[in-house]
């Protein structure tokens, strides 16, 4: 295998791609060929780096140099100066908004320094279309561990121990939910990935699918094994063409390797996966409406019970989790439930990805441990202290508060609410789905948290505790 001395990673998330990243990639290939460097420098398209405000992002390894807002016309200079002569192109370096200082290395950027990237660890680091890169980063090891070394009950137990809660907004304990479906009688069961991310300003799930599709697939397979399901559906909104494209490639590559299909890893476990494109109805993000839509029915929620774990897709026991929840699963299996449970708060474990949009300094994606105060998330790195940050929250808390409701908090202090799923007594908010900071003007001294109706709140939510 040829050795590449340098890797040029060009962000091809939806944000950077619409900012012209494909043209930047073409320009790199052209310039490198002109200099005869194409055999020693690898150019790849990655998923989202999270710094969407400053796209297109180009990161050059081994140095880890982080270039922002790169235009095709800048490429010749990067190739000539940096890649050929080893001189960093200072004018294209990322400028820290608060200190106005140029930062050279990826790892020195405060925006990343304050984050804890678990789910996003591969996003922007690997080529999502290359299954080998996913495997090189422990990909499918968790599946192998489950199939070979663990019983389905042990897998569910591990999920319970991890304390993972559903990342779709409801915050229901994932292990418990899997337990319900596993206990449900029936030969045929389904697992579904809810990728109908519809909340305004939210793009966490899209970025995970675009940047690390195999993590979601692997998570679903582990869930399928744990619950006795041999078929899965990813319900993804058609407005995410790039995510669907990456998923299709990922499923194709995994099938070629025999990681999807029959007798997976020689263990007798079978699993097939389908993609169902949603036609753009917001309500289809609600699980019962979503299943109706997969069946070809009109996407209408129905009353529960029966819950999907008992009577779901085509009347069979079904488990639905959100993209981010599934993507957490392989990490929990590989690193251990204790490692996951060590992050976050007493009742909300792990990390959460948030999408920052609107009038903030760095729109993009952040991943922070649960219980992180919103101040550091929103103030220290993305916004200046005076910037107004209205927030969108989807708030499915407990059954009694299941209707959509709007809260406006009048002071700064309240915005330091901890990002957790189980509401604090004085501020009974959950982190909701993670779509944040939709820019709607308000008076400058005010901060607002407005609860928008989320797909999860349209039907009666199960009680959390």
């Amino acid at each position: 295998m040829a050795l590449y001395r340098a890797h040029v990673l060009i962000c091809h998330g939806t944000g950077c791609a619409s900012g012209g990243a494909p043209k930047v990639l073409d320009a790199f290939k052209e310039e490198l060929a002109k200099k005869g460097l194409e055999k020693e420098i690898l150019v790849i398209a990655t998923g989202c780096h999270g710094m969407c405000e400053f796209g297109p992002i180009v990161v050059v390894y081994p140095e880890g140099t982080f270039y922002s807002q790169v235009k095709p016309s800048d490429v010749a200079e990067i190739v000539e100066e940096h890649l050929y002569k080893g001189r960093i192109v200072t004018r294209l370096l990322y400028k820290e908004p608060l200190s106005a200082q140029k930062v050279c290395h990826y790892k020195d950027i405060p925006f990343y320094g304050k984050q804890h990237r678990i789910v996003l660890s591969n996003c922007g680091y690997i080529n999502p279309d290359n299954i080998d890169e996913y495997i090189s980063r422990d990909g499918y090891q968790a599946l192998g561990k489950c199939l070979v070394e663990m019983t389905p009950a042990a897998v569910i137990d591990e999920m319970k121990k991890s304390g993972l809660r559903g990342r779709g907004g409801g915050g229901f304990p994932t292990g418990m939910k899997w337990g319900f479906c596993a206990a449900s009688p029936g030969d045929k069961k389904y697992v579904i990935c809810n990728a109908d991310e519809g909340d305004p300003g939210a793009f966490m799930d899209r970025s995970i699918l675009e940047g690390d599709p195999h993590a979601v697939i692997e998570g679903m397979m582990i869930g399928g094994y744990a619950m006795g399901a041999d078929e899965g559906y990813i319900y993804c909104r058609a407005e995410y063409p790039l995510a669907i494209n990456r998923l299709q490639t990922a499923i194709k590559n995994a099938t070629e390797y025999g990681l999807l299909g029959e007798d997976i890893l020689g263990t007798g476990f079978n699993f097939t996966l389908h993609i169902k494109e949603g036609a753009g109805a917001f309500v289809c993000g609600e699980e019962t409406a979503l299943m109706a839509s997969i069946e070809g029915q009109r996407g209408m929620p129905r009353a529960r019970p029966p819950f999907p774990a008992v009577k779901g897709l085509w009347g069979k026991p079904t488990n639905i989790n959100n993209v981010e929840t599934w993507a957490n699963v392989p990490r929990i299996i590989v690193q251990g439930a204790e490692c996951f449970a060590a992050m976050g708060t007493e009742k909300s474990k792990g990390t959460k990805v948030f999408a920052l949009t609107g009038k903030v300094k760095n729109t993009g994606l952040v991943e922070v441990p649960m219980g992180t105060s919103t101040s550091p998330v929103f103030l220290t790195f993305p916004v200046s202290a005076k910037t107004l940050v209205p927030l969108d929250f989807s708030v499915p808390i407990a059954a009694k508060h299941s209707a959509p409701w709007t809260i406006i908090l009048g002071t700064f202090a309240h915005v330091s609410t901890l990002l957790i799923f189980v509401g604090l007594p004085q501020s009974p908010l959950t982190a909701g789905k993670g779509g944040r900071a939709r820019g709607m003007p308000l008076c400058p001294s005010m901060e607002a948290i407005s609860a928008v109706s989320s797909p999860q709140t349209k039907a009666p939510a199960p009680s959390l505790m």
Partner: protein
Amino acid sequence: MTEEKKKIRSLDDLRKIKEKTGDLTSARSEVDKVKVIIGMGTCGIAAGAREIMNAVLKELEVRNLHNVAVETTGCIGMCQNEPLLDVIRPGEPRITYCAVTPPDVSRIVSEHIVNGRIVQDKLYGRAD
């Protein structure tokens, strides 16, 4: 680049693929790497730094060494002694070699990078 896809039929197969593909992303990792830095200023290029670069890459490929980061740098002001090649092993000082020729490269790789022994006759000094 991708060969005919072989089916992964066991955990062992998966581990083998992982070993084979480990170097795909290793250039992006900064852990425990030996750094080789080649002077690529105009002076370096004129003195033959490109040939040195090619020789380094070839040698690393032949020896299947994937824990080495090859970087380039601009002129550091000792143009007379170009091509300059620096080696930094993890936790060790930066060692500069001067007037490096392509045949020297394999010695530097095998002696210094692999075995940690400095090649004295090409040594210029410690850069720090």
